[in-house]
């Protein structure tokens, strides 16, 4: 079996092996079986395509391990298609492209993975590969499934036809994998060739197929597959099963993730206290506790939801269901100018728009892809949830049914705004019909847990890296803007403290001291850079009903929207005279300097509309610019979402005020 190598050896002595194959042939499962957990995902520079890369030792014999770099290329049907994944694969084989961190050179060997249950179609990529004149090994995967279908493949004759090693294997059971790694160590340049034009290669593949496979007249019994397909793609039943499956998925994401989220919250709280007690009071103390730990903790808390989403999606994809669901959604999305390919990106965006926008890479048509990217941030991500919870609680205290309805309305409003946006853009700047879907429907099977876990681990690491870099930087900047310049104690606070000292009753003294602290905190917040910025921009938000403190909350949210709750909590701490049990209550009861409530009925509705529709996430804009291919798209996204958010919030506020509301 292959073992993981140490990194001491230089890249030049390692053999690079490119792994190529059609989609749905179990290529990644085979790669994971050979490479294990040490593989990492890398991008190709300047593109949105990614590959998994692993450094492994392939044992030609027990005493002769060969250091190798395995590159799992994107799944493609042909090297000659006008698709970015086909082009990147062709470039890797030509030695002109390599994933980030690897040196671009012609691969030392090629592992072509094909599906034994669908041999003839897979021969196209085999023919194109052997024409590259690189040492090649062909892995005929899923041989166990082929046997069950009564398909017989003659490996020796196949090897003879291609002029290179052919190994029958099953990535799922491990059958033939040792033989495959041994064959890779001795891979040789094929001594046969295939035609290079499409018609020629098709004829060649028919001939090879006829020679190496016993044609089966008997079709396997696919009654169950047929029934499932008809049910899952049925206009009514398909939509019902889709809703049921997605409800289950979201229930699991929100329910199961809540436990690890609480643990992470507690852990960051404990780390904050520990660091707070260790570092002497001062700027470094505040930076570490309020900036770094609170900022990163506030983001990492969403890690369980993101991991769970990717894990469950990987299981659904592995089961074969997602391809069917894409067609159900295609029917619903097509009138709005989106295709079924947008389903996974938009679904992922309900956890976080960033992985959602990144998932849009898989959409083949450029205009479909751009429309999906522009629409994705309208889906209610998990970062909006704390804000929704706060505002629905303020609007409907102690009425859980109304809270739930308002919560659902937020999700529906986001989806509706997204569809409307797509419709508008597809009729103007992205004019043209959505490309009709043609998708391979993989067989229904039990999903591969190991592959799902590896993918989840990968996505989780990408998210953590982002939390440790970009989000950390934003948190530090925000903390600095909110903490500086320092303000001294106010005259009113000094007087209150003096009164407290003179009092005999310790409880009364404590109340006065708390009031003094609250006054100082408010004064510091108002005089900080962030407070001054809030004061400057407040007139712009006044028609929406926002005071200076809310304006600061909204502005701070431009870095990341979940910051709103924490910013408001810091600003209004102890501002009211009511004894509050929780942070939520303290924000809900917060008052202005003149004693009026900050969160009135009209203001809360206005904020709710604003937070559903506004593009309050800097990292999303960065990812949009990268994935859509320019800052003009990110600017358009920001401008359009801000316009929709502002006008909707304005309309909500003014309507409630005009109708006699408060």
């Amino acid at each position, binding site marked *: 079996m292959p073992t993981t190598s140490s990194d001491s050896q230089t890249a030049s002595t390692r053999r690079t092996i490119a792994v190529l194959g059609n989609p749905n042939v179990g290529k990644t499962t085979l790669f994971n079986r050979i490479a294990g957990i040490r593989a990492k995902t890398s991008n190709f520079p300047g593109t949105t395509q990614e590959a998994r890369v692993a450094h492994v030792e392939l044992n030609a014999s027990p005493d002769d391990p060969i250091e190798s770099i395995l590159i799992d290329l994107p799944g493609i049907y042909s090297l000659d*298609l006008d698709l970015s994944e086909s082009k990147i694969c062709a470039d890797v084989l030509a030695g002109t492209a390599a994933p980030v961190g690897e040196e671009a050179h012609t691969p030392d060997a090629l592992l072509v993975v094909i599906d034994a249950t669908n041999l*003839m179609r897979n021969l196209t990529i085999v023919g194109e590969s052997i024409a590259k004149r690189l040492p090649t090994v062909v892995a005929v995967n899923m041989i166990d499934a082929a046997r069950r279908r009564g398909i017989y493949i003659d490996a020796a004759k196949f090897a003879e036809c291609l002029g290179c090693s052919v190994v029958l294997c099953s990535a799922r059971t491990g059958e033939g994998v040792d033989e495959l790694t041994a064959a890779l160590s001795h891979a040789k340049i094929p001594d046969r060739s295939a035609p290079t034009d499409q018609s020629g290669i098709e004829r060649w593949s028919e001939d090879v197929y006829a020679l190496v496979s016993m044609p*089966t007249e008997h079709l396997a019994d696919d009654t169950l597959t047929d029934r499932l397909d008809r049910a899952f*793609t049925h206009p009514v039943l398909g939509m019902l099963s889709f809703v049921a499956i997605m409800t289950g998925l979201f229930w699991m994401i929100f329910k199961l993730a809540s436990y690890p989220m609480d643990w992470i919250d507690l852990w960051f709280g404990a780390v904050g206290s520990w660091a707070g007690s260790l570092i002497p009071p001062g700027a470094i103390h505040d930076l570490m506790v309020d900036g770094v730990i609170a900022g990163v903790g506030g983001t990492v808390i969403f890690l369980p939801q993101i991991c769970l989403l990717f894990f469950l999606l990987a299981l659904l994809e592995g089961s074969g269901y997602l391809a069917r669901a894409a067609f159900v959604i295609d029917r619903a999305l097509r009138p709005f100018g989106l295709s079924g390919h947008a389903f996974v990106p938009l679904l992922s965006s309900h956890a976080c728009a960033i992985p959602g926008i990144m998932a849009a890479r898989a959409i083949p048509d450029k205009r479909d892809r751009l429309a999906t990217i522009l629409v994705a941030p309208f889906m209610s991500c998990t970062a909006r949830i704390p804000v929704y919870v706060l505002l629905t609680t303020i609007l409907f205290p102690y009425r859980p049914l109304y809270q739930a309805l308002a919560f659902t309305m937020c999700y529906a409003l986001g989806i509706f705004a997204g569809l409307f946006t797509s419709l508008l853009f597809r009729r103007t700047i992205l004019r043209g019909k959505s490309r009709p*879907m043609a998708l391979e429907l993989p067989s229904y099977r039990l999903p591969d847990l190991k592959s799902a876990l590896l993918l989840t681990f990968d996505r989780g690491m990408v998210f953590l890296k982002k939390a440790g870099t970009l989000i950390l930087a934003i948190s530090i900047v925000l903390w600095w803007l909110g903490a500086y310049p320092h303000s001294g104690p106010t005259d009113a606070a000094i007087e209150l403290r003096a009164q407290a000292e003179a009092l005999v009753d310790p409880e009364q003294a404590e109340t006065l001291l708390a009031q003094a602290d609250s006054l100082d905190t408010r004064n510091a917040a108002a005089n900080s850079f962030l407070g001054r910025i809030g004061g400057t921009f407040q007139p712009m938000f006044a028609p929406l009903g926002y005071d200076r403190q809310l304006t600061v909350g909204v502005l701070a949210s431009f870095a990341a929207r979940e910051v709103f709750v924490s910013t408001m909590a810091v600003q209004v701490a102890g501002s009211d005279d009511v004894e509050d049990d929780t942070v939520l209550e303290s924000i809900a009861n917060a008052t202005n300097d003149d004693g009026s409530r900050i969160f009135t009925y009209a203001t809360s509705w206005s904020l709710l509309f604003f937070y559903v529709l506004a593009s309050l996430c800097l990292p999303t804009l960065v990812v949009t610019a990268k994935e859509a291919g320019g800052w003009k798209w990110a600017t358009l996204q920001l401008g359009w979402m801000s316009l929709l958010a502002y006008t909707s919030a304005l309309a909500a506020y003014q309507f409630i005020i005009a109708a006699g509301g408060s």
Partner: protein
Amino acid sequence: MPIHNASMPKASRKAVPLTQLSRGQRGRIDCTDAASEDCSMLRAMGLRPDASIQMCRLGEPCIISLTGGCGGGCRIGLAKDIASRVMIHIDE
């Protein structure tokens, strides 16, 4: 001439759109009258001229299986738009 075609059933001379097949009916692909990039994609996916197929589900989406000796293991879903552009010789 591909060897395995000798054992295949006779196909009608006149080609009809894929959407005119009934469930369970088999045929062979004649040609695809779609945009060139869709056409190359479909060919690479296995919907090439002379490929044997069986209709599994009609409507939107139209689901067919590639039957050419592989036991019908490969299924392809096609939007109606594109399915109506794939021309088929129905097996007699």
